[in-house]
């Protein structure tokens, strides 16, 4: 038996919306620690993962590990039926192929219940090694979204360069080029609005703008976003979800046109 209640149904909606930017279906792996998910886009360039700790749910019960295979479009439909302040309960009995979704209004006078059919989704899981990043940039999530959107008008690639002074985003294309620089600054009273760069080593990487724009759709989840960069390593874009966990995107960098350095992995 699996049961998890979240006081804010809107939080789950935001998480699933962020997932939907990358994939159509996803497996939610539920264990006694909480709900985890990892999903990769069809071209294997981007990955989204989230980790919602059991502490964020009240109550949370998971007798044995189960995997909930969800069609995200279906879940979105169901979640649209929730009121803004409704709580949400996810429930799945052992040996059934459905998930029960229950919404309750704050004063408990309205409840709505939905049964969602689960799917068997064949997914590939990637092991993501812990890594020491050369630069970790924190900035307001709204600012990040704005930058991605603005630069998407100037070409398919976005270059992120981190130096000790700050971080610079640039793009260039047929119509011209654009450069947006953010300086490091901290405001004591408004922690969410500060820009910080923790730098071990200056680093410059190129990414596909299209994916970054998709990632920034997760902005409602958190007021700030963290970018972790390291040469020849996928970018990590992390949105912290207060008290519950985090949602991360990984994006493979664009690599120079050097055939020899390309690595062919064998997919067994």
């Amino acid at each position, binding site marked *: 038996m699996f049961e998890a209640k979240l006081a804010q149904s809107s939080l789950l909606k935001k998480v699933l919306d962020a997932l939907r930017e990358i994939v159509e279906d996803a497996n939610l*792996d539920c264990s006694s620690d909480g709900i985890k998910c990892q999903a990769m886009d069809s071209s294997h360039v981007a990955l989204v993962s989230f980790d919602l700790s059991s502490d964020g749910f009240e109550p949370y019960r998971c007798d044995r590990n*189960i995997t909930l295979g969800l069609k995200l479009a279906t879940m979105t439909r169901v979640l649209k039926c929730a009121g803004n302040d409704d709580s949400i309960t996810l429930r*799945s009995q052992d040996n059934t*192929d459905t998930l029960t979704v229950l919404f309750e209004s704050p004063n408990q006078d309205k409840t709505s219940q939905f049964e969602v059919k689960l799917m068997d989704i064949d997914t590939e899981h*990637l092991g993501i090694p812990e890594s020491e990043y050369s630069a970790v940039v924190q900035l307001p999530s709204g600012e990040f979204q704005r930058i991605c959107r603005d630069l998407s008008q100037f070409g398919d690639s976005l270059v992120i360069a981190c130096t000790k002074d700050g971080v610079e985003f640039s793009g260039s294309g047929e119509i011209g080029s654009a450069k947006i620089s953010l300086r490091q600054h901290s405001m004591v009273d408004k922690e969410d609005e500060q820009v910080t760069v923790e730098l071990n080593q200056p680093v410059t990487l190129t990414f596909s703008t299209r994916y970054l724009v998709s990632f920034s759709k997760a902005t409602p989840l958190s007021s700030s976003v963290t970018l972790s960069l390291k040469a020849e390593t996928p970018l990590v874009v992390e949105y912290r979800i207060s008290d519950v966990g985090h949602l991360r995107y*990984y994006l493979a960098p*664009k690599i120079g*046109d050097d055939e020899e350095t390309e690595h062919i992995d064998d997919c067994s």
Partner: protein
Amino acid sequence: MGIQGLMKLIGDYSPSSVKDNGIKTYFGRKVAVDASMCLYQFLIAVRTSDGVLTSSDGEETSHLVGMFYRTIRMVENGIKPVYVFDGKPPDMKSGELVKRSEKRAEAQKNLAEAQEKGDFENVERFQKRMVKVTPKHSEDCQRLLTLMGIPYIKAPCEAEAQCAELVKGGKVFATATEDMDALTFGSSILLRHLTASEQKKLPIREITLDHLLTDIGLTQSQFVDLCILLGCDYCDSVKGVGPAKGLSLIRQYGSIEKIMSNNPKLNFPENWPYEEARQLFMSPEVVKADSVELKWSKPDEAGLVQFMVEDKGFRCVIINFSLNEIICAYSEDRIRNGVRKLEKCKEGATQGRLDSFFTKLPSPATASKRKATGEHGHGPMRKKSKLSTPLLHKKK
């Protein structure tokens, strides 16, 4: 062509080794394409209502059109193709080749009859049967590929074997062919329908050899024996042995020799050269992967226009793919357009894939499925296992 009944066997005994994916999944992958197979496909599929496409002086051009557009389609989707052409056929194949030319001769006879009767449907059918890939076709295509900046390799012998060698040597990710003997030669991943027409909207079918071998419980050499039993291009098959029987025989006895000594009643062909066939599959004549260098370069626009438009006379022809659709009138502009597309993909940095940075883990779902195979012995795996997860709806 290929191995008789192998696809059926895979479908019955190891459905999970087959995956249907969109072409996007192969983004950034290098793929060895069996050129002879493609040429054959193009010669059959790319034609007008009155036969193959020809240039003004009567030369066939269907293969060039097909090659040009379908290569561009692959490149546009981020795939890096390398074409592998057949070399001289192995001596063992002569029997098969004689059969094929007999079939063609028969088609020719039928064609003449049908033409006399004015039976157009059959005319087309027999014409398609007469299609043969000639060295001239291959040369044309090699010239085209050079101009397009796409690498190709001339195999010393069988193209499928060379493709398999490239896969094994880590030079490419997979072999793209319709011919199932690529698996017998040991390509760890086989892609089907990669060069199919875009209009057909076929998903790419990926077959993973390791997964297949685990599911049917055979080693590669046992698998080769199984393929020989089922019937390959190099020797006759054993009458009365189909996929199910063949598999159970191999599982029971382990090799053709042991099957023969234990089952004298089976109808083995006389002087059956199974050992030579096995030799051919296990150590075919190939160029070693290490000595192959693959380079994708910029297309030569002027050269392409010269070759396709001037030499091959590509000017405003209306072509009709086998589906009776009028696709396009094409001319110099179309060639230049194609070049744009090729160039665009060459521009700037290439997008990396996540799985080249992170290691792939066996997904929990697959792991439990595999375990289930072990528990149930080697029985057919038609049903999806449901161990820890109550998930019944197979994603469609």
